């Protein structure tokens, strides 16, 4: 573990990423404590510019709602959607990839064609269609993001499993009479965990971007204040009130950047052989 941290912290960007993400996490968790009022509450006159009033440092939006409060609650939504949809995508992608890689043959063919079917449809377009059909809500959004983002997981896991499949310790396990299920769960999958973690951290970032894009297009959950919603709502007034789209935009940028930096750091730390020179 100490070794892992040493390798991870050698990547300065990754450390910065962790710091940013921790800040976002803390703000998200403490939002109800820091800002006891609902982010939808109209607290001041509309279109108050940043720093005009110390109580509303980032200004207010078209209905006089505090932008800073919105950002804090938006962090909750973004992180929640990012994490839950990534977990859901992993739950779909890992079993499919593992089965395809382990059994090969027609099972592999069938599962991979099925995966490719999803890969050939532009993921964002598919997500829009899914959300539009099932009515925008937090559940349909998480489901849509999970459905469009599991194929890369399946392909990655399949590749890993394929190469592990022919190792001696797996063959030994087969000879000792273990069932296929046990072998996959106990012998194979634990060894694929590193690349999955790296991929997952990047998927969280992508999921946050997807959720923001959907909300921006008006397909967000109308009862949740999210960053994408804030930008979407501010789009029509961008010439009068730049701050309404600027601050949520910065929040998305920093969070996604942080996750990408962490992903890279994890890659370095978990795959020492792949670590780039000069670090």
């Amino acid at each position, binding site marked *: 573990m100490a070794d892992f941290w040493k390798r991870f912290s050698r990547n300065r960007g990754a450390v910065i990423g962790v710091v940013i993400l921790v800040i976002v996490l803390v703000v998200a968790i403490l939002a109800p404590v820091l800002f006891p009022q*609902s982010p*939808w*509450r*109209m607290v001041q006159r*509309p279109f108050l510019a940043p720093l005009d009033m110390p109580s509303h440092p980032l200004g207010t939006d*078209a*209905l*006089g709602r505090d932008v800073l409060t919105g950002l804090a609650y938006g962090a909750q939504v973004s992180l929640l959607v990012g994490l839950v949809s990534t977990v859901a995508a992993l739950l779909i992608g890992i079993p499919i990839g593992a089965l395809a890689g382990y059994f090969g043959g027609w099972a592999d063919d069938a599962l991979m064609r099925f995966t490719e079917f999803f890969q050939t449809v532009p993921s964002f377009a598919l997500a829009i269609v899914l959300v*539009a059909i099932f*009515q*925008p*809500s937090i559940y349909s959004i998480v489901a849509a993001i999970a459905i469009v983002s599991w194929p890369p997981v399946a392909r990655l896991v399949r590749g890993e499993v394929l190469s592990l499949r022919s190792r001696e310790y797996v063959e030994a396990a087969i000879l000792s009479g273990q069932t296929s299920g046990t072998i996959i769960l106990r012998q194979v999958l634990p060894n694929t965990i590193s690349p999955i973690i790296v991929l997952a951290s990047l998927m969280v970032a992508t999921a946050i971007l997807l959720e923001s894009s959907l909300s921006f297009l*008006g*397909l*967000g*959950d*109308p*009862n949740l204040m999210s960053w994408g919603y804030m930008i979407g*709502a501010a789009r*029509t*007034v961008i*010439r*009068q009130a730049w701050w309404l789209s600027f601050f949520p935009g910065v929040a998305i940028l920093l969070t996604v950047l942080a996750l990408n930096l962490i992903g890279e750091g994890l890659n370095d730390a978990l795959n020492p052989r792949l670590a780039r020179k000069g670090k």
Partner: protein
Amino acid sequence: MLKRLTTLAAALLVSTALHAEPVSGGRANVVIQPEPPSLMVGLVQNGPTQMVAGNIYEGLLRYDTDLQPMPQLAKSWEVSEDGLTYTFKLHDNVKWHDGEPFTSADVVFSADKFLRETHARLRTSLEHVESITAPDDTTVVFKLKQPFGPFMGIFEVGTMPMIPKHIYEGTDYENNPANNTPIGTGPFKFEEWVKGSHIRLVRNEDYYEEGLPYLDEIYWHVIPDAASRAVAYETGVVDILPGGSVENFDVQRIAAMDNTCITDKGWEYFGPHSWMWLNNREGPTADKRFRQAVMYAMDREFAKSALWNDLGKIAQSPVSSSTRFFTDDVNKYDHDPEKAKALLEEMGYDGETVRLLPLPYGETWQRWAEAVKQNLGEVGINVEIVATDVAGWNQKLAEWDYDMAFTYLYQYGDPALGVARTYISSNIAKGSQWNNVEGYENPKVDELFAQAAVAVTKEERQQLYTEVQQILTEDVPVAWLLELGFPTIYRCNVKDLVTTAIGVNDGFKNAYIEE
């Protein structure tokens, strides 16, 4: 009555009060949004169609901003003592755009044949008509079965446009090739329509009123995006933005530009009245006290100033203040959260979540739903906003699958034409979002509306409508929001554009551009 203008607009208008002599010539560049499906106003009556076609076609009458009739194709008219016979004298030198003379035969054909078949809203009014006859070429007589109060109000161009008999008689109206090249009697002729780009109308040189119109041509620009429409005005591509062309948030910025005037007149005939449908059948909204609580909980003053730039008015009653027989002698609902809480407590509201459907017509309506949700939340009503598109919204209302839903409807100048339909129990039927969608039933209200429609004198009608407005504001079948103000924005040197109750829809007849 004089509609309230923003202080900004008032200041700008003062400078235009000094009129010069009208000058001929020039081109008006106008935004049309969205692009109309057709310009044949006898077949299609949606907003943009009426806006363009109202300058090509004409009705027998126009209406001023107080809804008083003015001559158009009819130069004079008489109503018999018993309110049963309406006699119109037509101008005698009127020609269709293709050169054929316009006569009383065209009026009889339009009202009795063509529009009875194609125009649902007019058909309902014409059920009161026994016969339409033409004793000579310039006289038309409408005989009614019983008196019908709003009858004098149905001769506007969008309601009863005159259709050329020589082109349409005996043909399949919907598929007549002439629908693509509309022929009317109006001040402007159809010239060309490049789909997705523009519609061009040119001056009718043979117009029957001497010297009119002043403009040489009108270009209606089709610009699908709201922000681009605002830019088109700012860069001088267009000079006139009819109501609803730009997002409300942009209105203030554009109105502050040099040489820019703004008015919210020209919508009196339509009287756009907004409210929330409250489902009277089930859930908390079935309780009168809950509905009253909703009225007290909403901060409509805030919505008006934050979302509608202070244009429009708070809706006091089911009847718009620009519609006839409005009274403010009703139960009033000011923003009073304490009263709302008391009512909710009295009824024992248990916090059951109510679903709110916003109107899917753009950002303003979405924000409005969020503001109302917040208002209601502050008195303890749990609201969930249901996201929906236009098709889903139509369907949910038509199937009564909602608790609260935003909407706005036109009133057409008279409660019998545009108000009664929302509240009478005979109008409860699935499948439409323009009838009694809320499911309100009150025999007394049914009776009052029925009597008022056929009462002869104005005083009698006023008395009946006053009573019905008082009952409705007590029962709160729907939660009235605002009388919407749709501002027309234009360069101040465009004069006399909005002079009637339907504004730019028939306004180019008198408009001129000052050098």
